[in-house]
């Protein structure tokens, strides 16, 4: 196979990995070295499915010894197989980077030979890229479950971020759908990486290992796990392993003819709601137990924060000029940025309803949960009705039409100069 075809095959094999972020690392540029990493991350293009391309996401090889049911690269699938050498990969990265196509490199691999052999190859590639090619751009490396901890530790010297995919939200599902993968082989390296990351953060050593931390990914909808159990798992990963992100990937039926897997792809809104809940955990101070106190799924037709707010309506309405920043964050329609701005702005004077509008607070949601200088602007304070309105199921009463005063009747026009 020529280079072009191999790149095609290895891209196809990598594209179901959803992580694309290039943020969290702040590597300054250095004279004589190529590249830097911006802490905000930079998207360089967007694909026709609306996902960002930030990193060159590619597999080193798609020859796999495993036979996981949900995976496109499983051993028993009949598809073209390819591999690329460390040097070929480096050349591709460098040439893409110099043309500003990409922000960095996301290298993963199917498990070829053994976990150690595969990890060794991956390590070889990132080491070559950093030392020979003097590349300082962003690198995200997939760690191979079951590889030696020494290899992992060495690789972490050369990359910004590392990740292990937890694959499925429960051990039971893992046993069922990926019987060759063991929970311990995934969890113990994650633990190791969380220690590495903490060391980098706290001790600020000269060689910064994985400065952008670690992430993970799980497949949603291939197994019967509930959203409540998924969010509790994520909560645990953030609490105990200091993960930067958990990615959720709605199951795409790439393999057919297996009764253990659903035939149809799950409702895409589920993935969307899980991300909403995930952001509420990471940036809004929510806990998984608050969002989903019982073992159930997230509501598909109402966003997670609104759902929480109507179910906990006793907390509302909040006075916008008094509520704490932490509580502002809990108001539907107010995001992290506006919560901060409201908290800052009100030190200079009371904030009115018009100002909130100008600040682009989403008032069609927020108005049911706030008062502005003592006044409530919603048309109802019945949580059940609010729920229905927000779902868009209840038609709002038509506004009373008032006669609009005509500007031209009463005032001379300064625009046309007529008096």
């Amino acid at each position: 196979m020529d280079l072009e075809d191999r790149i095609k095959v290895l891209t196809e094999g990598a594209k179901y990995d959803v992580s694309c972020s290039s943020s969290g690392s702040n590597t300054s540029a250095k004279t004589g070295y190529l590249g830097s990493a911006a802490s905000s991350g930079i998207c360089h293009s967007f694909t026709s499915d609306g996902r960002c391309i930030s990193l060159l996401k590619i597999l080193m090889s798609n020859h796999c010894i495993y036979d996981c049911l949900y995976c496109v690269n499983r051993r028993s699938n009949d598809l073209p197989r390819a591999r690329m050498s460390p040097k070929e990969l480096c050349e591709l990265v460098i040439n893409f980077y110099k043309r500003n196509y990409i922000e960095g490199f996301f290298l993963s691999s199917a498990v070829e030979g053994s976990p150690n052999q595969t990890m060794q190859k991956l390590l070889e590639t990132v080491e070559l890229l950093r030392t020979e090619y003097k590349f300082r751009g962003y690198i995200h490396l997939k760690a191979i479950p079951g590889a030696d901890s020494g290899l992992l530790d060495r690789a972490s010297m050369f990359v910004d971020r590392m990740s292990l995919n937890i694959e499925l939200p429960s051990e039971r599902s893992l046993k069922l759908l990926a019987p060759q993968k063991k929970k311990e082989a995934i969890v113990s390296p994650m633990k190791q990486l969380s220690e590495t990351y903490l060391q980098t953060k706290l001790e600020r050593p000269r060689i910064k290992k994985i400065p952008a931390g670690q992430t993970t990914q799980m497949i949603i909808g291939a197994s019967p796990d509930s959203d409540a159990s998924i969010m509790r798992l994520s909560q645990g990963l953030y609490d105990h392993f200091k993960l930067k992100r958990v990615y959720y990937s709605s199951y795409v039926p790439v393999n057919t003819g297996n009764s253990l897997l659903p035939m149809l792809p799950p409702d895409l809104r589920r993935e969307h709601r899980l991300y909403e809940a995930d952001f509420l955990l990471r940036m809004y101070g929510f806990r998984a137990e608050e969002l989903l106190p019982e073992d159930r799924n997230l509501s598909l037709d109402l966003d997670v924060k609104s759902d929480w707010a109507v179910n906990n309506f006793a907390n509302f309405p909040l006075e916008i000029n008094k509520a704490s920043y932490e509580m502002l964050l809990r108001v539907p329609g107010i995001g992290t940025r506006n919560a901060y701005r409201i908290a800052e702005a009100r030190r200079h004077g009371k904030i009115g309803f018009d100002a909130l509008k100008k600040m682009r607070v989403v008032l069609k949601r927020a108005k049911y949960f706030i008062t502005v200088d003592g006044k409530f602007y919603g048309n109802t304070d019945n949580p059940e009705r609010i729920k229905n309105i927000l779902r868009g199921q209840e038609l709002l009463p038509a506004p009373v039409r008032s006669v609009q005063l005509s500007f031209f009747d009463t005032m001379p026009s300064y625009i046309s100069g007529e008096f």
Partner: protein
Amino acid sequence: MKVLVPEPHLAGFLTAVYHAYYTHKDAGKISSAPQAVTLLDEAIEVATDLRLACKVRKGIQRKAGVAAYTEIANAYLSCDDKKEEKIFNYLQLLFRYGRAVLTMYANPEVIAFRDVYNKVMHEVHRFTGFLRFQELASGVYYSYFGGDNDIIELLMPHFKTRLNTQKFILHDIKRGKLTYWDGAAIHLVPAPDTVNILLSDNEILFSSLWKQYHKNVAIDGRKNLKLQTRLVPKKYRWFMNEF
């Protein structure tokens, strides 16, 4: 209303600000946009005076900090034809309240200014990702583009640090501006009317590999062109080789 009409560059605008405070205290607004002056207005053309502009710059920096001035200078690069009025309104608050203006997020004048500023910076951020370089036969990397705002000078520092190992050219085709990094220094020059480029041997290969990658990495079952268009507006695609 008295309207101060500055020359259309930052120093001109700052000079006008000086005059609005000292020589034409009754001026109602500052604008160099032709439609800003109506029949009833009295237009006063302001000649740029670098000394006065400098005074205003220092005044801003003293009143609200160096970063506040940078924000204003960057906002001035906007294509908004009301930018001078909006910046001037904001400056009046800045001179009255000092640093406090930086956090007056609910003030309509501040919001109007921040909208102008944020649009400029958003485009800068996008362009740090969207610009494409072509390798020329001479080994120099060449990039052409053109956005809504005049941001070539804000893009340069980003690429200069990141791509310091290669010589490259940024060419804003819409504004006829060109800046290049020769490995040691940055130069800003007016762009020639026509540019002839000779691509390197590798260029076609990597450009086509990139186009192929861009196509292959998409998941067909999840097509969402509306979202894609929102994230990469069509107005930018003419300088991105994958579109």
